[in-house]
């Protein structure tokens, strides 16, 4: 096993912090790792929903749901379209395809190693 010197740690740290896929995955995990957001994504996967539908389904108050929906939309996990006066939210499949791609690379590194 190779010894990690302080310099080496610095280099690795830089490498990982700046690595785009690593960054992307960290961000995705942070966002999806929240239970409410995870549930919202599952809900929208079944069918597009208005904000009020999400509130009802998750039994949470409006500010909290709006907050989560805003985060999801900002990071392009979901998108909205106008339905009458209201916004209807649905899953952005492209984002999940991207995630799937990057995740696969990440996971192949684990698969190829013996610990």
């Amino acid at each position, binding site marked *: 096993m190779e010894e*990690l010197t302080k310099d080496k740690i610095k280099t*690795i740290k830089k490498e990982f912090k700046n690595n785009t896929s690593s960054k992307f995955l*960290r961000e995705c995990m942070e966002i999806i790792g929240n239970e409410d957001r*995870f549930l919202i994504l599952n809900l929208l996967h079944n069918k597009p929903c208005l904000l009020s539908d999400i509130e009802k389904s998750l039994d949470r108050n409006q500010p909290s749901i709006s907050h989560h929906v805003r985060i999801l939309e900002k990071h392009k996990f979901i998108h909205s379209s106008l339905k009458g006066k209201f916004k209807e939210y649905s899953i952005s499949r492209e984002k999940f395809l991207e995630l*799937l791609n990057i*995740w696969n690379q*990440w*996971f192949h*590194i684990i698969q190829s*190693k013996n610990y």
Partner: protein
Amino acid sequence: MAQIKVMIVEDELITAEAIAILLKKLNYNPIAIVSSGEEAISKIKNLNLDLILMDIILAGTMDGIETAQFINTNYNIPIIFITAYGDKKTLDRAKLSEPYGYIVKPITNEDDLQPTIELAMYNHQVKNNLKKGNEKFEQIKQLIQPDKNTLPSQMNNPLEKRNYLEQANEALDPMLKIEVFGEQINLIEWLRSFSNPDRFLIVDIMKSHPLRLDEIQMFIDKSQSTSSHHIKKLEKTGFIKGWKKGKYIYYSLNKPKVMEFVHLWENWIKNLSS
């Protein structure tokens, strides 16, 4: 395991005794020999039987098939027919009482008995487990949603689904839990342990290097207590494991567990991307 208690219902005493001897050789316990259906039914209550070997022609007014039908309705004991009749008509009638097997006489050695008995005991066990599982499932269904018959996969409301899964998870035994209901709950829990960017970074780096606590601390620029909190969390979910080398404890990925997560997570993303 306790010896399997067997009752032999047979009108010819010599045949019955011969079967009893063979059963003993096979380490079964032939606890009773009776010659009529009526006698069998009267004794059955007190014997706590595991298996009945039943001749079709019996001494009393009931024949073996009628006796078997009565026993099936009132008790949960597997029955195997032993008979000299191999004709289709008898077989068809015997089938109606759902026997666990059918042995044609003469029975001369252990091999004539053993496979059928073992298979019968196994099938009975399977049937009982299935029944128990179904009962439990019905119970849970009643408990959680007395007015509906929706399966978790048909639920559109994620909160409802989660509550259902959680309650079902508590009520079910661990075996079923993993196979039937475990998936989504585990995924949320596991995702939560990755939801902290520092923790994901730790795992990310551990892909290529085993790390010590002090090294982890340097990587994430956090205090020792924060670092060990992250380690504890990851250890608890089983994603990493610690091992001693010299005076240090090193942590590395626990591949089987990580692969388990990868599998669930990947399926989930795939699902959402299609």
